């Protein structure tokens, strides 16, 4: 498979200190209600949250608990029904569509369960989609190297395995050196071995680039790799705990 796990990931890395780290996101009393036909469905029922620079946060919760909604709001893909989201002094809830686009373009990297690579572009070109937009980005080659995909630059998605596709997606997400990396069930479609490789890549990036990372999963075992674990249930945060030690993804078992 040609995975080379970076030595940094082997080191027991502790996250940023809550006392000294900058607060990147300050989420205050947000709610989100979807209208589905005649029904109102509350996805978030008042969430307060702060995310610190450089920390790796795992959002844990069952289906329908509001994890993805929260992630999408933080990522500027969605806006809350009420409440406020502050990103380094900018009020995301007051931003219009073009401001949110600008925000995503400059600050956010996304990774999804189904990779969402453009099938007609090679690995290198998929990453270039992002590096073209940014001036402080890595080159596509550097970004792919960071996730251990430097040897498959000119392969099309159809020529890559699921884990490889997801690592290309991660490379694409981090190529612009985003301030925040948001991963929605990145291993949901992968087997355990491949999943660990992908998680290692994410942990590795977080450690190396100090990118604030939020990772959604319903798999409790993955929580061990986080600095901090947030538990969501029924649209509310029901647990917020800090791991004393971040587990290395390769150690995880599920």
């Amino acid at each position: 498979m040609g995975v080379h796990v970076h030595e940094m990931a082997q080191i027991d890395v502790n996250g940023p200190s809550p006392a000294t780290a900058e607060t990147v996101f300050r989420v205050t009393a947000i709610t989100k209600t979807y209208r589905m036909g005649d029904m109102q469905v509350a996805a978030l029922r008042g969430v307060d949250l702060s995310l610190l620079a450089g920390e790796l946060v795992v959002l844990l919760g069952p289906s329908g608990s509001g994890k993805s909604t929260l992630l999408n709001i933080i990522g500027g893909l969605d806006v809350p029904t009420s409440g406020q989201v502050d990103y380094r002094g900018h009020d995301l809830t007051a931003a219009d569509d073009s401001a949110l686009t600008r925000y995503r373009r400059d600050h956010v990297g996304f990774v999804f369960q189904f990779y969402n690579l453009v099938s007609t572009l090679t690995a290198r070109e998929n990453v270039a989609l992002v590096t073209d937009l940014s001036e402080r980005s890595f080159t596509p080659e550097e970004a792919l190297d960071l996730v251990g995909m430097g040897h498959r630059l000119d392969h099309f998605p159809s020529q890559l395995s699921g884990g490889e596709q997801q690592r290309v997606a991660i490379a694409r997400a981090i190529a612009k050196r985003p301030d925040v990396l948001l991963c929605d069930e990145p291993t949901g479609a992968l087997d355990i071995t491949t999943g660990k490789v992908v998680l290692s890549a994410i942990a590795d990036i977080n450690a190396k680039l100090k990118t604030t990372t939020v990772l959604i999963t319903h798999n409790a075992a993955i929580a061990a790799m986080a600095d901090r674990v947030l538990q969501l249930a029924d649209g509310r945060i029901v647990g917020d705990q800090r791991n004393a030690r971040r587990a290395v993804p390769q150690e995880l078992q599920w």
Partner: protein
Amino acid sequence: MVISALDRKLVHDLAKMKMQALAIALVVASGIALFVGTATTSRALRLSEERFYEDHRFAHVWSRLARAPETVATRLSAIPGVTAVEGRLVAQGVLDLPHVAEPATGLFIAIPPTPGHRLNDVYIRRGRHLESGSANEVLVNEAFAEKNGLAPGDVVRAIIAGHQVVLHIVGVALSPEFVMPVPPGGLVPDERRFGVFWLAHDRLADLLSMQGATNDIAIRVSGTEPEAGIIAAVDRELEPYGGQGAFGRTSHPSHVMLEDHITPLSALAVVVPAIFIGVVVFLINVVLSRLITTERSQIGMMKAFGYSNTSIARHYLLLVLSIISGGIVFGVPIGVWMGQFMSDWFATFFRFPVLVFRLELPMVVGGAAVMLGASALGALWTLRGVIDLPPVVAMAPPAPTYRPTVIDRFGLIMHLCAPSTRMILRSVTRHPGRAFSTAAGLSGAIAIVILGGFLADAIDRIIDVRFRAQQKQDLSVVLAQARSLETWRDFESLPGVRLAEPYRAVSARLLVGERFQDVRLIGLEESSQLRLIVDKNYRTMSVPPEGALINAWLGAQLGLRPGQQVAIEIRERQRRVVNTRIAGVIDEPVGTDVYMNLRTLGRLLEEPNTFSAVNLFVDPVRELELFSVLKRAPQALGVETRKIALANFRAMPDESIGFIRRIETIFAIIIAFGVVYNTARIAVAERAHELATLRVLGYTRREISAVLLGEIGVLAVPAIPIGCALGFGLSVIVTSAVSTDLLRMPLVVAPPTYAFAILVFAAAALGSALVVRRRLDHLDLVHVLKVRE
């Protein structure tokens, strides 16, 4: 009744794709409306024609002759197959209408003073029939009466056989012989300057000094004997009386003109809807294949649950057929309305007593069945690939299939392109079939607009060739009798005449074995400046010193080639057959004139150095003065001004084809929008996932629109030349479908027609792009990305 789950899905699917379904249904509606409208109109005209001909005993065979005793009719009745004969008097004269500057032509037909029981019976529209004993009473044909504001009680002055007469109009009439009033020697109807008058037999006999004699024969036949045999027998009987050659309905000016209108209409009723059907089948294919691609796993699931291939195929067929049926239900009433409107409107210039409009159900059902059948076949063709898949394969998502294509070999070029450009190029080259069919559909939209416009271009070309390149004279004066060439200079001394040129025009018939064609022999001077011989591509030919120049179309019809000898039957005064050599062919778009040298023709006619008409080039200031002289000149049989001939000529296609052309253009625009909109919508659906991904990565709406519209543009740009070529090709088909003895449509598509088609296409593309852009603005990023591609 229990509605099955599959039927409920059908309703939901239809609701989901309502805009696309509407676009397709509109195209269907346009096609079926055009078919029903055109077909019912041509049917209505045909029925009205048949009814009028039967009820008023329209003759089958005619012959002019110099003079024969009335008893000749009895001998003609004895010819096997002849059921009725009428010997009558017919004369041509000049009319003096105070409010019309140019001299007008009158045709005077003698009829018995009682209605009914005779051939070519008139139908009295207003006023009354002639009364015996009132010598100067006349009936006038409706078209002429309308155009000149004449009504019963009015009087008209005319010169008949040199006699000045005052005619009292007592009735306005229609005749099966003048459904289209084409003046003698003319090509197209002239309702304003050509009047037909029916007057008492005895009165006309007095004027012509032909008591007890006849100069015109009309015959009805039973249909049991071949017409050619009857014509030959009639010619033999009339030979001693200066018979000018009998002819059937296929040479009768009004009948020919009527057929020349109905035939192209029938052709258009088939050709154009056929193109519409092609476009509909294409659209169905495009939409259905997209739908099936997205529902592939659902189909697999249905099959896994035990739904049979038949019930799945039935489901999608029902979807297609309900869209098509919707279009038909919408289009048929529009077509019926169009048919009624067009028939009513044709009725104003085809002079029928009653318009027989009948909606024929089998025709409508047939049209609908063809539409449904063709779409169903197209749908099945699309379906077959998925139906054949085993459920397990169908349920699995189609693997991402992109592999390097031909475009990737151009490494350097690709390297220079932005990733979004590469996406476009790769997606086009990856599915060349799909790209091709999309480009083909888009080009079809352009082609059909061109088709709508080309008829007008062809007619413009015809008019330009005939009335600008060929004819330079201001007017032509046709003489009652041929005169010696020594006298032609007399015409140069008429007021206002700057230049006069003599010519000779003779009715004749080309004989080739069993086949024949009635033509006009035109004798021109070699130095002729006012009348040139010009083909449809503006090539000028000079009059050959010997032999005849025949029409290329006529030559092809009769199998005549330059160098061959051809027999020509002269059909004036003494009927005789002469032989001459074909010196060349000329591809004139109008009529079937045969050109000869004026002196050669004179020798052939055994009337050397004569002329029968003059072309005049006139000082416009003194035109009115000239007209007033000509109106009173007994030697002038008829006067035709180029300006009026042009107006009459233009009126004809403008009135018939023009309307259909406008309707076609409207429908073509609907098609263009239908195709482009559907193409764009499908592109959005296919690209939604990638475009959403780009949006998440921080691309703006404008940037992703550029990707999508870029792809449509990449297909639309080549569609333009292809569409122009296709439009030209369709024009070829229509050209051959509507060509007649009178008109051969030159294959001319003018640059403005192409420009208009491209403009319509561009507007359709832009309009669709805006709609699509709106959809992109509302792209639900979260939803799209949560779904597996």
